[in-house]
């Protein structure tokens, strides 16, 4: 797996593919974790075509035992994980509150928030022991602004910010850094197909920089946080949104 190893959950998604490609270019061997098996294998194939080290593992992050078993397998293979990027997540269900079932609401919280918690938990001990390690979580501009129909998603994404700060405080004495990124509207296939051309134009016109983020814009921010250049940055949230939302 090479000298440096990164795990990227949701690594086969639209942003995920750009992130794994960027980290591979920076010299990381990559474990691509995703629920989508087909996209996962495809992603690893793309990486290998460029002679990068990569392996795919299917996982549903809602389940503690699945996460625990998988990370044990990964540690048996590499002995060390330098970087964990928790990208997996999504709106999943978009409904007004009185039409939102408890099981759907919980699913959104669990996939986005609990999945992040479980993956972090699986790497903390070895990272602390080595006194080295980097965790990057994914929030969203909706975690700051809220979004109608996304009471659960916005709750989870706001929660990830405070979770990140708490974990950063716990791990700072060990030299392990924990930060979060907040992508704004991003031009992935999944997002673009869910809007008409007119809707997309209206959405992007409202962004100060006049365009949606490209997956690469997000990948560059992740790469920065995964590098030594951000060595004194911990507990922070980096917005990558063209000026759409501040703070």
């Amino acid at each position, binding site marked *: 797996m090479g000298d440096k190893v990164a795990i990227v959950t949701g690594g086969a998604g639209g942003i995920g593919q750009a992130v794994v490609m960027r980290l591979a270019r920076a010299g990381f061997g990559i474990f691509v974790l995703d629920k989508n098996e087909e996209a996962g294998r495809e992603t690893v194939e793309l990486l290998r075509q460029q002679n990068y080290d990569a392996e795919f593992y299917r996982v549903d992050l809602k389940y*503690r035992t699945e996460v625990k078993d998988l990370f044990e397998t990964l540690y048996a293979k590499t002995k060390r994980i330098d970087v964990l990027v928790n990208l997996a997540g999504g709106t999943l269900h978009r409904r*007004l*509150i*009185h039409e*939102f079932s*408890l099981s759907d*609401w*919980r699913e959104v*919280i669990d996939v986005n*928030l*609990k999945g992040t*918690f*479980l993956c*972090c*938990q699986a790497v*903390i*001990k070895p990272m*602390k022991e080595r006194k080295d390690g980097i965790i990057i979580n994914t929030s969203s501009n*909706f*975690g*700051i*602004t*809220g*979004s*109608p*129909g*996304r*009471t*659960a*998603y*916005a*709750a*989870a*994404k*706001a*929660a*990830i*910010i*405070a*979770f*990140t*700060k*708490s*974990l*950063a*405080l*716990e791990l700072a004495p060990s030299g392990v850094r924990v930060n979060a990124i907040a992508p704004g509207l991003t031009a992935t296939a999944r997002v673009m197909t869910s809007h008409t051309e007119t809707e997309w134009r209206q959405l992007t016109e409202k962004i100060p920089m006049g365009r949606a983020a490209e997956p690469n814009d997000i990948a560059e921010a992740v790469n920065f946080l995964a590098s030594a250049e951000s060595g004194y940055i911990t*507990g922070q949230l980096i917005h990558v949104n063209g000026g759409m939302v501040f703070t």
Partner: protein
Amino acid sequence: MALGLAREGARVAIADVNEECANTVKNEIEASGGRALAIRTDVSNEKSVQAMVEKSLKEFLRVDILVNNAGIFPTSPVEEMSEEDWDRVIGTNLVGAFLCARAVVPKFLEQGTGRIISITSGRAFQGAKNGAHYAASKAGIIGFSKSLALELAPHRITVNVICPGITDTAQPRGHQTEEQIYAQGQRIPLGRIGQPEDLVGPAVFLASDAAAFITGQTLLVNGGSIMW
């Protein structure tokens, strides 16, 4: 909070997992001539929340204000946090606020009025060492409340959040000595820790007509300890 709202003329349903405490508050309200109900409620349980709202609607026929104050704060580093602890904190503090809001919203829509006030914590902004689940749940409440404010704004229903600092209740005494609590108060710009009574004015204000144009906001009531 319940006593303060009762003083302002609200009939209050006190929903608490601790029935004895709820009854004490109920008796105090009734002793001063107000009306109150004590309903044993587990806010993390869908059926329990539904039953609580049905019971108070049966008694009072309407509901104008929901205050989401129920919360728990166990401590443990993330490394040692059990899945059960995680689920319990997120389930009570965050999912509980969702369940209570969802249970009153249909009545709010029918009435064309309603106020939701949820309680968060400074930890939502600053994180909590050994309380990552708590900090996450309290930040979650803010993201949730902003989204709900956007959903309900067309119906002129407001949704806001109050963020107390350290408050003179049993909670900080679980993990701090009296001296530590006093010292903390000295470091707060207004020179003391908060009293539960400090939260009454802000809650009554947000529930009143004076705050009709305020929604999706978080009001920090903390003596200036965090300015965000």
